[in-house]
């Protein structure tokens, strides 16, 4: 079997070059200032203190977290009933519905966002509302499909048992279906909140120039200002926030399982 193992070597070299090394580059740039020699590095936390001492940057971070949070909440609020209703359909219709929900996910996100720009031109809305609509639109199918998978896996006998024990429909939902579908909600949150925080296409296309999220900030520092060190620091901060929120949601998942 050794000879098979050897087949993975080219791939190991590839990921070392194109995944591991680039990640270290971000770390390196974030911890140094520009104008370093190639061999001598002066490490500094300057880039980070610059971010956290400027209210403008903190406001952008706050806006990104807020809109990502609102998007996630609305995706759950709209998506949960949808997933539940789909799970109650006959099997053939369930397959059809999942196919209908999957289809738009295969269509270029930029083109869909561009279509929303055309639709929203008809309405006089604040940029934040437009961005919010675009984000809920883009992420809703992921949330529905994740929750639906969790509900569809649920053992029907549990529901029957609950009815037999005298619980009504509402109580069965609250005590059986809802708690058992939490893992679906959690994986839905990771698929919605994380990309929403870092999104920069939707704010740019739907919010116009004046709606800036942290993704747009990174873009500006890399492509306009050419300050890769500060840009790397911002993306590192964003990545850390994402890792932290992922850790917290996973922990939440575990504690509901124990309950």
């Amino acid at each position, binding site marked *: *079997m050794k*000879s098979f193992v050897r*087949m993975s070597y080219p791939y190991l070299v590839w990921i070392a070059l194109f995944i591991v090394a680039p990640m270290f580059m971000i770390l390196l740039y974030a911890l140094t200032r520009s104008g370093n020699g190639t061999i001598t590095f002066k490490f500094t936390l300057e880039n980070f203190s610059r971010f956290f001492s400027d209210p403008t940057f903190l406001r952008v971070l706050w806006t990104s977290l807020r809109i990502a949070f609102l998007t996630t909440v609305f995706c759950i609020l709209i998506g949960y009933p949808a997933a539940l209703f789909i799970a109650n359909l006959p099997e053939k219709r369930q397959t059809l519905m999942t196919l209908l929900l999957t289809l*738009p996910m295969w269509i270029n996100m930029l*083109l869909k966002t561009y279509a929303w*720009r055309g639709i929203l031109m008809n309405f006089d809305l604040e940029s934040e509302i437009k961005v919010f609509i675009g984000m809920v639109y883009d992420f809703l199918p992921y949330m529905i499909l994740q929750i639906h998978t969790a509900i569809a896996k649920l053992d029907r006998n549990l529901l029957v048992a609950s009815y037999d024990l005298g619980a009504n429909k509402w109580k069965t939902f609250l005590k059986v279906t809802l708690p058992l579908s939490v893992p679906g909600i959690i994986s839905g949150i990771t698929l919605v909140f994380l990309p929403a925080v870092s999104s920069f*296409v939707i704010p740019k296309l739907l919010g116009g120039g004046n709606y800036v999220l942290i993704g747009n900030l990174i873009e500006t520092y890399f492509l306009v200002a050419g300050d890769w060190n500060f840009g790397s620091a911002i993306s590192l901060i964003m990545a850390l926030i994402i890792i932290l929120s992922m850790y917290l949601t996973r922990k939440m998942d575990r504690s509901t399982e124990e309950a």
Partner: protein
Amino acid sequence: MERKKSPWHFFSSGYLILVLAFIYLPILYVMVFSFNDSKSMISFAGFSTRWYEEMFENREMLESIWYTVLVALIATGVSTVVGTVAAIGLSKARPLVRSIALEVNNLPVLNPDIVTAISLMLLFLSVKVQRSIVTLTLAHITFCIPYVILSVMPKLRQLDDNVAEAALDLGANPWQALLKVIIPQIYPAILSGALIAFSMSFDDFVISFFTAGVDVQNISMYVYSMKRFNPSVNALSTLIVVAVTLILVLANLIPALKERKNKKEEF
């Protein structure tokens, strides 16, 4: 047992129809307005195919379609081969090597696109490689491989190790064993991995935007950098929607038809 059509039933169907309407609204909207006789996205002035004609005269747009397809085909081809071979190799590797490699493999999937994008951009900049279609393709291969591996790996776990071992014992070399024994058993997973890789590459914007340089742009970059609203994009979107629908319907129909055929043969 007769199922009663309760008010609840009407409510839930109505709700699902509303959700579908929301999800399909922009798609239907661009399809309708791609046939609009005026530039307006608000009022429909009459049927025309002028935006389709304009699309085929728009050099920049056609070029972006060509680059998108070219890069997606190369990235899919390379990542499918490398990913499949790597997955097979990893499935036989020591658990420690395997789990480290799979953790790294997951990074581009879990990381926000923009982090992957700037990490690759920094890599190309620091080794002073001019960003071009080559760096764009390298970047696409890099983020496509993980999806192939994630698709192939679970299928490999179900395989019986002894079959490949038997092939080797009977004198096959590892590549023969790979081509004649392992791959035929896992090819549906390889195909679905390739399909995901293709759509990831075809739809990518963020990573392309940071790794392509100035003289190459794919469809997403073209749409993003457009200064004015251009209704030819509606025509392009409509064609893409039709193509995606056809591919998905075929991908779902072919296994169903095959199954039916197999069942017929059984009887």
